[in-house]
C-alpha cells in the first residue's frame, strides 16, 4: 500500500481502525525523506526523534479512543513557524541556530490535536521570494522537474506535499506564498482571510499581509487542517473573533458540494486574462471555467480596475513593514552576531550584512526608503490609499458574484536561476495573488491542468472575507469533477 498519497481522512481512518500505527506512518515518511529529500531540499530540519515521540503519543491517544482526525497525521511545517525547542531558521543565516522558547499558536493547535511534526521546510529567506531561491539553505526543487523552482516562498512545503514527503504541510502567504507554489507543484493551497488564523509565533515578514494556511493534496484535506488552525487568539490582536465553521465536517457530511456550486455566481475578472498570461495557463483556466459551468455555476465577467497597481502597492507596503519587523535582528539577544565587533555600529552593520541575504537586504532598503521623512507621503501613504481602492474593487465585484476565478500565476514553474538577475520579473510571478493579500481576502489555489512539459497549472478562487467555506465547497466540487489533483510527479 502506498501510504505517501493517502488523504488525511483515509489516514485517520486507518489509524483509528489500528490497521496502521502512527509510528509506522511516521517512520514511512521519515524513510521517504531520507531517500528523496537530498534531491528536493524540501526540508531544512527533520525532527526524527520528536516526530517518533509525537507518533508514539498519538498511538497512545488512539488506543485510549481520544483521537481527533489529525491524531497521528505527519505534517511538514514551514520553517517560519516557531516550534518550541526545535530549530526555526526562516531560511536565514541570521536564525540558523535559533531555537524558540515558545510555540506558534497554529502549530500548538495542530500538535494539541495530535498531529506529528516531521520537520521544518525550506522557504525563501524570511518568506521574501517567489522561487525558494533566496533560502540560505539552497533552493528547494520542484518534484515535477528538479531544474525547476517549486515556487515560493513556501516552496519546501509545496515540494514536500507534491513529492509525498508528508501528508500535508503548513505554509504562509504574504503575497501569494502559499498559492503560487501550490500552483507550481500541482497541489491545493489555501490562504485564509487575514485574521482567520493567528499569527502568534509566525516570524513576521509583513504583518498586515501575512497569513498562515494549509498546503495539501486536496480541498478536503485543506478543510480539515483549517478547521483546527483557525480561530481567535488572545495573543494576536489582529486575529478575528468570529466563530469557526466546521469546514471539513460541512464539506464531507453537509450539503454536497456539487449541490452548493449549482447557481453559484462566479466572476471572471478581465484584468487577469491580459497579455503576459502564458497560453497553456489561459487554456487550462478557461477549461476550468467550462467545468464550473458544467457544474451549474454561472460564470460572468467582472472588472477589478485597480489590478495593475497591485505590484507597486505591495512593494511599498510589504518592504516598509519588513524593514521594521527585521530591525530586531541586531545580534544583541539571539541569532547571528558578527565576530569581534569594534563597537555598536560595527556590530549592527556586520551582523546584518552577514546574517541577511541579498533579497532581504534589498527589501529592507526599499522599505526604509519609502518610510523616510520626505518620501512617506509619496510612497507609503499613497500605497495605503491604493490598497483601500483595491479592496473597494473587490467589494464592488462581490456585490455581483459569490466568488472570483483567476489563474494563480501567469506561467508554470520556471527554471532555477532563470529570473535571478531581474527582481521585477520575479515579482511579477505574484501578480494574480498579491491583490488578495492587500484586500485581506481568502484565496484558494487548485490544480487545473498541465503544460507541455508537463508542469502543473493552478487556478485561484477568491472569496468574500471569512467565506472560506464557499471557496472550499466550490473547490471540492471541482476536484470531485476532475482528477488534476490526483496526478503525481514520476
Amino acid at each position, binding site marked *: 500500500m502506498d501510504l505517501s498519497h493517502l488523504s488525511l481522512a483515509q489516514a485517520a481512518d486507518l489509524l483509528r481502525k489500528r490497521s496502521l500505527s502512527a509510528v509506522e506512518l511516521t517512520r514511512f515518511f521519515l524513510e521517504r525523506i531520507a531517500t528523496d529529500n537530498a534531491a528536493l531540499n524540501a526540508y531544512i530540519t527533520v525532527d526524527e526523534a520528536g516526530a517518533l515521540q509525537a507518533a508514539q503519543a498519538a498511538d497512545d491517544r488512539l488506543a485510549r479512543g481520544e483521537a481527533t482526525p489529525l491524531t497521528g497525521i505527519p505534517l511538514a511545517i514551514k520553517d517560519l513557524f516557531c516550534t518550541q525547542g526545535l530549530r526555526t531558521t526562516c531560511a536565514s543565516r541570521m536564525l540558523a541556530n535559533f531555537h524558540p522558547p515558545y510555540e506558534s499558536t497554529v502549530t500548538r493547535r495542530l500538535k494539541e490535536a495530535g498531529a506529528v511534526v516531521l520537520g521544518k521546510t525550506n522557504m525563501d529567506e524570511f518568506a521574501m521570494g517567489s522561487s525558494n531561491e533566496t533560502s540560505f539553505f539552497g533552493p528547494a526543487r520542484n518534484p515535477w522537474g528538479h531544474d525547476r523552482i517549486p515556487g515560493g516562498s513556501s516552496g519546501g512545503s509545496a515540494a514536500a506535499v507534491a513529492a509525498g514527503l508528508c501528508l500535508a504541510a503548513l505554509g504562509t502567504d504574504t503575497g501569494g506564498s502559499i498559492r503560487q507554489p501550490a500552483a507550481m507543484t500541482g497541489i491545493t493551497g489555501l490562504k485564509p482571510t487575514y485574521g482567520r488564523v493567528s499569527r502568534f509565533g509566525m516570524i513576521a515578514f509583513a504583518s498586515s499581509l501575512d497569513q498562515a494556511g494549509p498546503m495539501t493534496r486536496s480541498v478536503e484535506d485543506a478543510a480539515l487542517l483549517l478547521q483546527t488552525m483557525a480561530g481567535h487568539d488572545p495573543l494576536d*490582536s*489582529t486575529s478575528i473573533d468570529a466563530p469557526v465553521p466546521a469546514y471539513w465536517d460541512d464539506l464531507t457530511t453537509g450539503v454536497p458540494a456539487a449541490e452548493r456550486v449549482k447557481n453559484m455566481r462566479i466572476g471572471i475578472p478581465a484584468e487577469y486574462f491580459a497579455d503576459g498570461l502564458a497560453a497553456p495557463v489561459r487554456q487550462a483556466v478557461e477549461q476550468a471555467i467550462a467545468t464550473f459551468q458544467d457544474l451549474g455555476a454561472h460564470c460572468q465577467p467582472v472588472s477589478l480596475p485597480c489590478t495593475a497597481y497591485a505590484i507597486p502597492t505591495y512593494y511599498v507596503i510589504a518592504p516598509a513593514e519588513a524593514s*521594521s519587523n527585521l530591525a530586531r535582528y541586531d545580534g544583541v539577544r539571539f541569532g547571528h552576531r558578527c565576530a569581534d565587533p569594534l563597537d555598536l555600529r560595527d556590530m549592527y552593520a556586520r551582523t546584518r550584512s552577514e546574517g541577511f541575504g541579498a533579497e532581504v537586504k534589498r527589501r529592507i532598503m526599499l522599505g526604509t526608503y519609502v518610510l523616510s521623512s520626505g518620501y*512617506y507621503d509619496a510612497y507609503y501613504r499613497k500605497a495605503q490609499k491604493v490598497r483601500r481602492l483595491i479592496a473597494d474593487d473587490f467589494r464592488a465585484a462581490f456585490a455581483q458574484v459569490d466568488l472570483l476565478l483567476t489563474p494563480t500565476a501567469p506561467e508554470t514553474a520556471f527554471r532555477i536561476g532563470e529570473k535571478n538577475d531581474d527582481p521585477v520579473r520575479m515579482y511579477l510571478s505574484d501578480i494574480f495573488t498579491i491583490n488578495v493579500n492587500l484586500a485581506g481576502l481568502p484565496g484558494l489555489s487548485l490544480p487545473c491542468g498541465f503544460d507541455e512539459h508537463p508542469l502543473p497549472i493552478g487556478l485561484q478562487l477568491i472569496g468574500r472575507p471569512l467565506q472560506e467555506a464557499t471557496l472550499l465547497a466550490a473547490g471540492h466540487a471541482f476536484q470531485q469533477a476532475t482528477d488534476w489533483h490526483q496526478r503525481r510527479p514520476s
Partner: protein
Amino acid sequence: MSPPITSQSRYETVIGLEVHAQMRTRSKIFCGCATQFGAEANTQICPICAAFPGVLPVLNREVVNMAIKTGLAIQGQIRLLSEFSRKNYFYPDLPAGYQISQYELPIVEHGQLVIASPLDQGPKKIGITRIHMEVDAGKSLHEGIQGASWVDLNRTGTPLMEIVSEPDLRSAAEAGEYLKKLRAIVRYLGVCDGNMEEGSFRCDANVSIRLRGAPILGTRCELKNLNSIRNVMRAIDYEVERQIELIDNGDSVIQETRLWNADLNSSRAMRGKEDAHDYRYFPEPDLPPLRLTPERIAAVAATLPELPDAKAERFRTQYQLSDYDAGVLTASQELADYFEAVAQQAATLGQPNPKVAANWVMVELGGRLNKENWDIQQTPIPAHHLGQLVAMIQQGILSGKTAKELFEILFTEGGDPLQIVERKGLRQVTNSTAIEEAVDQVLAAHPEDVAQYHAGKTKVIGFLVGQIMKRTQGKANPALVNQLLQARLTRQE
C-alpha cells in the same frame, strides 16, 4: 552672562514641556510581565519584551483606562479612534528596533491645565496639545564594564504617557508651577507616582526666546536630563540666559538637544538638528486601531476622584480657608485627606475650627516633617490625634506652649493625647485663684516695673505676663492672666 529676563526685558521666554509619566499598572503595556522596580536585571522579561521573532503585542486595557482618566482630568478630548505607530531606531535597549507609540492619532488632544502664574499673579491656562501612550525602553549599563555594555530589559514594556504642553509657558517659574500641578493630578489619579528622581516622571523642556511682541517663535533648544522640578527651572534659566547672550552678541541660536548637568549647573549640546533621527513612523500593523465608545469613557469618568482645583475650591468654602492655605493643603491627595481627618476629628469633639487645624497641619506638622525629610504619608502622628490636639486648644485645655509640647511628644514618642496631657500635667490652669496668687507674687517681686507701668510705660505689661506664665510653668490661660493682671494694676492706681 546677561541679567535674567524680567517683565521689563526686551525678550520673552517661550517654553513647552514634554512629560513622560510611567503608568502605575501592575503589568506591562503589551505583555503580562510585572512592572515592579528593583528586580534583578532581566528577570521581569518574556519573549515579547525581548522582541523575539514572531511574538506580538497585546494592549493592556488598564493602560488605556489610565490615559482616558488623565485626559479627562486635564479636560482633554478623548479620541474615539486612535492608533499606535512604530518609531524606528536602533539601540540595544530597544529590542524590537522600534518603539510602539502613538503618532498621528493620539488618544487625548486639546487639554489644558490652570496654574497660578507667578508672573501674572493670577490663574493662567496652559494648553496641553496631546497625551499619547507609548512603551518604555530598557536600560543600557556602561559603568564599570570593560569593553562591553550590558542591557537590562526589565523596564522594557513599562507603559508611558507622554504629555505635551503647548508653548504657553513664559518663565521657569511657570514651568515649575505647571509641573507641580501636573504631578499632583497624576498622583491624585493614581496613574503615576510622580517621582522625578527615580525617573517615573520625566520632563524635557523646549525653550526659545523672542523679542517681546514678535509674531513668530524663536529657534528652540530641547533640554534633557532634568530630574527634578528645581533642575527644570535652573536649566531653563540657564538656557534663557545663554540664548540672550548669543542674540545680544549678534549670533543666532542653533536648534539642538542639550543635556543638563546639575553638578556643573550648565548644559552642553548633545546633538544638532542634522543628527536628529529619521524615525520612519508608520501605523503599527500588529495592533488594530484603538476604538473607544462614549460608554467606556463615561465609565472611566465615573471613577475620577475629586481633583486638586475642585478640592481647593471646596476647602475655601467648606472650611473658610484662604486661597493660599487651600492650595497648600490640596497639593497632594494624602495631605488633603490628612487635613480633612484632623478637621473632622476636632469637629467631632465639638470644636470645629478648620483654620487652626490647617495651621497645625501646614506649619507645625509640615515644618517638622520637612526637618525629617519625610512626606505626609510618613507622619508618625495619626490624623485623629492631631485633631484631638486641635480640639484641646479650642477647649482651652492646652495653651500654645503646652500644645507644642504635646505635639513634640506625639511626634517623637506617640501615645494617646489625653493621657499624655494628664500624665505630664499639661492641662492649662484656668483656676483664677491660682493665677491671682501668681499675679500677686510677681507684682510683689517687681515693684520698679509696677512703678514704670503707673508712670505710663504700659509696655512692661508684656514682661509681667511673661513672669506670671513662667511662675505657672506655662499652664496658665494667657487670656485670663492678662485679664487678672490688668484688673490688679488698675486697682493699684
